[in-house]
C-alpha cells in the first residue's frame, strides 16, 4: 500500500510542476523575476501585500481559516511523512495555482523559517560521543560526531511535518488580509479588548513603519550607518524617537476617535462572503484524502 501512495504523491508533484511551467510560460512577459531567497528590505510586509492580491480573497475567511487549521492539525496529529507531503503539495496547489501567487515568491517565502529548521534539525540529527556509536561517524580528534539512519529519518519526517504545517498556515495568510483574520477571531469570541487592540495595532504598524523608514533614510543619507558603532547609536536613536513620536500622536488619534463617537468598540463593515457547495465538497474531499493516505500507510 505504501508503494501506491508513494507513486501517487510523486505523480501529483510532477503534474503540478508541469502545470506550473506551462502557467509560467504564459505569464513570462508580464513578470520580472527576482533572484531566489527571501529579501527583507522593503518587503517586510510582502505577506500582507500578497494576501490582498490573492484570487482567493473572495472565499469566506472563516472557511479558509477552518480548512487550513484542519489540514495543519492533520499534519501534526498524523505525524506521517506521506500526509505531510500531501499537505505540502495540496497547499502549494491552492496558494500558487488557484490563488495566483508567483511560484518563485512562494518558494522565497518558504525560506523564512529555514534558518530555524536548519538549527533545530542539526541538534536532532547529530550527536557527540567518545566512541563511534552511530551508522555514520566523523572523527574530530577528541570526540566523534555521529548520526544514525533512524535519527536522519526522524529528522526528515520532522522537516516535512514542519513544512506542511507552514504551508497550511501560508494558505490562510497569503489569501486572507489580517483584518479579515481579526474578524474571524472576533467571531470565535476572543475578548473584545484584545480584538480591539489587534485592530488598532494592525493599523499603527504601517504608520510607524512609514515613519521609521523616513527616519532611517534621513540617518543613512547623513552617514548614520557608516560603521557598526554609529549604526547601533543611530538605530537606538531612531527607535526611541519613534516611540516618542508615536506616544505624542496617541493623543491626537484619541481625540479624533472621540470626535467620531468612539465608545470603546471599532465596528468595521465586513463583506459577506458565502461558502459555495463546491468549496465544501473540495475541503471534505481533501481532508478525507489526507485521512485515507494516513490509514493506508500507518
Amino acid at each position, binding site marked *: 500500500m505504501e508503494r501506491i501512495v508513494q507513486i501517487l504523491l510523486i505523480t501529483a508533484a510532477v503534474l503540478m510542476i508541469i502545470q506550473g511551467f506551462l502557467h509560467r510560460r504564459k505569464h513570462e512577459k508580464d513578470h520580472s523575476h527576482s533572484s531566489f531567497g527571501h529579501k*527583507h528590505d522593503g518587503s*517586510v*510586509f510582502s*505577506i500582507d501585500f500578497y494576501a490582498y492580491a490573492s484570487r482567493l480573497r473572495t472565499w469566506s475567511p472563516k472557511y479558509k481559516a477552518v480548512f487550513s487549521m484542519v489540514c*495543519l492539525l492533520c499534519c*501534526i496529529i498524523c505525524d506521517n511523512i506521506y500526509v505531510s507531503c500531501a499537505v505540502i503539495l495540496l497547499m502549494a496547489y491552492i496558494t500558487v495555482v488557484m490563488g495566483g501567487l508567483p511560484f518563485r515568491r512562494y518558494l522565497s*517565502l518558504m525560506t523564512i*523559517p529555514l*534558518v*530555524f*529548521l536548519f*538549527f*533545530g534539525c*542539526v*541538534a*536532532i540529527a*547529530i*550527536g*557527540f560521543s567518545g566512541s563511534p*556509536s552511530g551508522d555514520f561517524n566523523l572523527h*574530530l*580528534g577528541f570526540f566523534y560526531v555521529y548520526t544514525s539512519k*533512524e535519527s536522519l529519518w526522524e529528522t526528515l519526517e520532522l522537516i516535512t511535518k*514542519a513544512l506542511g*504545517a*507552514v504551508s497550511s498556515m*501560508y494558505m490562510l*495568510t497569503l489569501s486572507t488580509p*489580517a483584518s479579515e483574520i481579526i474578524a474571524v477571531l472576533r467571531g470565535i469570541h476572543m*475578548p473584545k*479588548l*484584545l480584538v480591539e*487592540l*489587534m485592530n*488598532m*495595532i*494592525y493599523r499603527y*504598524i504601517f504608520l*510607524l*513603519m512609514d515613519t*521609521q523608514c523616513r527616519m532611517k533614510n534621513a540617518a543613512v543619507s547623513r552617514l548614520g*550607518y557608516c560603521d*557598526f558603532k554609529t*549604526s*547601533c547609536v543611530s*538605530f*537606538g536613536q531612531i*527607535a*526611541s*524617537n*519613534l*516611540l*516618542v513620536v508615536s*506616544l*505624542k*500622536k496617541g*493623543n491626537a*488619534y*484619541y481625540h479624533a476617535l472621540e470626535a467620531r463617537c468612539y465608545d*470603546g468598540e471599532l465596528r468595521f463593515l465586513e463583506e459577506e462572503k458565502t461558502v459555495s457547495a463546491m468549496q465544501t465538497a473540495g475541503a471534505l474531499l481533501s481532508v478525507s484524502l489526507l485521512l485515507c493516505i494516513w490509514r493506508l500507510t500507518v
Partner: protein
Amino acid sequence: MTKKQKKLIVFITSLCGMFAIVPAANAMHIMEGFLPVSYCVIWGLICVPFLVIGFMHVDKQVKENRQTMMLLALTGAFVFVLSSLKIPSVTGSCSHMTGTGLGAILFGPCVTSILGLIVLIFQAILLAHGGVTTLGANCFSMAIAGPLVSFVLYQLLSKTGVNRKVNVFVAAFAGDLFTYCVTSVQLAMAHPSPTGGFGYALIKYLGVFAPTQIPLAVIEGLLTVVIVIGLETYAQDELKKVGFLKKGVQN
C-alpha cells in the same frame, strides 16, 4: 602542531565562519509544526494564568481611562515594528531584536504579556515568524518568561542603586538570554535525544543556538540602553505617563 590539531583548527574556523554567515532571522521563534500536539497544548495552558492576570490588569486600566487603549495600541505597534527591524550587525547577517526586554522595563510584565501575545500573532500572520500551534510555547518564552526576568532584575538592581545604564543593559541582556534558554528547554523536552534523554538534548540545543543568540543578546542590551537614554532625554512627560519615571529617578 600535529596534523590532528591543524585539522581541528580548520574545522573550528569553518564552523565559526558558517555560523557567522547564516542569517539569524528571529531564530528563536519555534516554527509552525515543530512541536508535537501535546506540547503545544501544555505550553498554551501554562500561559493562560499569566495572560489572564495581564488581561485583568490591562482591562482595569482601560476601564479607568479609555485613553490608555490608544497608548497600549501604539506601544504594541512599536514593539512589533522594533522586532521586525533589521538591527546592525557585524557580519551583515539579518537579525532582529525581541523588544520585550524594553517593554518589560517600560510598561511592566502584565502589559508586556498581553502586547507580546498580540505581537506574536501578528508575527505569525504577517512575517511567518513562529506559528499558531507553537503560539503557546513562543508566548511563554518571549512574552512571559523573558520579560518577567528583565522586570525583576531591573527592579532589584534599581533598589541597589547600580548605574542606570548598566541596570538597563543587564535587564535586557538577561531577559534575552533567558528567552533563549527557555526555548532550548522547550525544544529539548519535545525532541529528547534517544540515547542521552532530555539533558543531552538540552545541551545540544543550547550549543547550537549559542553562537547566534549570545551576540544577539549583547546587541539587544546595548540597543536598549541607547533607546532608554534617548527616551530619557526627549520624552520625560510621555515616560511619566507610562509609569517609567514614577519614582523620581532624575539623578
